[in-house]
């Protein structure tokens, strides 16, 4: 039972990290990133590929984080000077390109067969169940990421991000280089997704392009919106709820006469229904502030 809880918690932690990255982009800066999973994939594959070709796991992981951030820069440069909808379109295309690249460049990624047999941090040194260690590692990282992001968003830097979210004409009129701040937010958010990707690989011990479908991006969005955007605590709460629901319904699988693909469809329908109910009764999200909704521009 404890083992099971630990296993679920690790997934919750990974998704919380992943979604905090998105919350920085969307919740605080107003950037619409529909391709967040692409950065998760870059983090996971870079970590695994580098390790498989001989690099130590810590270096591989750091490279995954840095490369995910760097791709944030590459995607941001052509799109962030334009109005917000361009970022949405380009990121969704970007994440699919990443996935198709991973699927088709078999010389590098073994395509649909996926990758396994890579190291995990300190694996050889842990005398107890590795999952306990991974649990500590993931939640330690979540705590650090949470504190860093909180520190950033409550600084003058974070104030500029919020002003961009509200109306970017204002910070521009006051002498802020809006483009630079948006790039920074996207890079940091993407690097955080990259870190989540490395943990995802450690947790599954196997990665394939199937793990990086667009649906993962939308889980992150659901988590952020459910928790209340621009509320990092809400994001963590959202991750707990969404993941418990996801795992809970998998349990249910054993008791209902539905095929697994039918169950998957049903699960998405129920999530949709829950979101509709949320929008009706608590549109600001669970930890969001109600007053914000009634404000005019």
């Amino acid at each position, binding site marked *: 039972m404890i083992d099971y809880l630990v296993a679920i918690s690790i997934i919750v932690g990974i998704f919380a990290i992943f979604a905090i990255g998105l919350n920085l982009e969307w919740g605080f800066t107003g950037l619409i990133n529909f391709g967040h999973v692409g950065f998760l994939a870059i983090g996971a594959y870079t970590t695994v590929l580098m390790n498989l070709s001989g690099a130590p796991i810590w270096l591989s992981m750091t490279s995954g984080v840095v490369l995910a951030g760097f791709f944030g820069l590459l995607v941001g440069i052509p799109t962030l000077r334009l109005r917000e909808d361009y970022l949405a379109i380009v990121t969704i295309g970007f994440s699919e390109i990443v996935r198709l690249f991973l699927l088709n460049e078999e010389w590098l990624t073994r395509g649909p067969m996926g990758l396994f047999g890579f190291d995990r941090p300190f694996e050889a040194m842990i005398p107890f169940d590795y999952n306990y260690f991974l649990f500590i590692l993931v939640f330690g990282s979540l705590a650090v990421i949470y504190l860093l992001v909180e520190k950033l968003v409550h600084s003058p830097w974070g104030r500029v991000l919020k002003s961009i979210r*509200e*109306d970017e004409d204002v910070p521009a009129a*006051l*002498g802020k280089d809006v483009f630079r701040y948006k790039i920074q937010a996207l890079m940091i958010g993407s690097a955080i997704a990259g870190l989540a990707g490395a943990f995802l690989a450690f947790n599954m011990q196997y990665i394939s392009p199937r793990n990086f479908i667009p649906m993962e991006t939308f889980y992150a969005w659901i988590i952020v919106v459910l928790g209340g955007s621009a509320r990092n605590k809400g994001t963590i709460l959202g991750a707990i709820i969404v993941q418990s629901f996801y795992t809970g319904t998998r349990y249910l699988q054993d008791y209902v006469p539905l095929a697994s693909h039918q169950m998957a469809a049903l699960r998405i329908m129920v999530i949709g229904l829950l979101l509709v109910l949320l929008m009706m009764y608590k549109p600001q999200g669970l930890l969001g502030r109600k*007053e914000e909704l009634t404000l005019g521009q």
Partner: protein
Amino acid sequence: MVQEILRVRDVKKYFGGVMAVDGASFSVEEQTIRGLIGANGAGKTTLFNLITGYYKLDSGKIFFRDERVDQLPTFKKALIGMVRTFQLTKALSRMTVLENLLLGPKMQGGEQIHNIFLRPKKVAYEEAIIVEKALEILEFFDLMHMKDDYAGALSGGQKRLLEMARALMTDPKMLLLDEPFAGVNPTLARKLVGRIKELRERGMTFLIIEHDIPLITEVSDTLSFMNHGRIILEGPPEDVKHDPRVLDAYLGGGP
């Protein structure tokens, strides 16, 4: 010798077939208050958008302190001291009134990520100074009691005050105000006029669009009249406001 701070030369801007600004030229001398009047749709706000870089010029040149600035992005113009307010007020709704003001000061150390972690003391110290200044300005603008409310909750007139208060936080050399008195109660409007004159004494230059003729006459040193995208008249406020073309635009309801 009077020094020009802003020089606009033959600036044009078309929207499709509409000539919003059609060869406007004028200069503003340093440490003066310039009023800009003209009928609705004369092109005043568009001219502001051109001067501050929100729109690209179709042709013409703009100089700020003898430096050509028409290709500079908006934020760089703000950094060299040219700051504007918006006719359609832009309160940052989901930020508090105080936060709106704290955003103002240029080049804050805490706006750079490395300083937040490496020089937290310096950032905190700077922030304390900024807060103090913001509170003083809020007091003047009668917004103190709202400082912790969301800016989106302000009334129309209060949002207008917030616009100006926020712009003042940047310590601009030149402030471009787009209808700063619209919707502001007369007592406070007079008080603002006093403050603007006081800031002028301290070295600031103003370009003010305003439809309230008595107020703009009172505050301006010189008045410019814009009609169909051009500045067609300029001079002492008393002369300009009695010119038949101005009377016609304001009373006659157009040509």
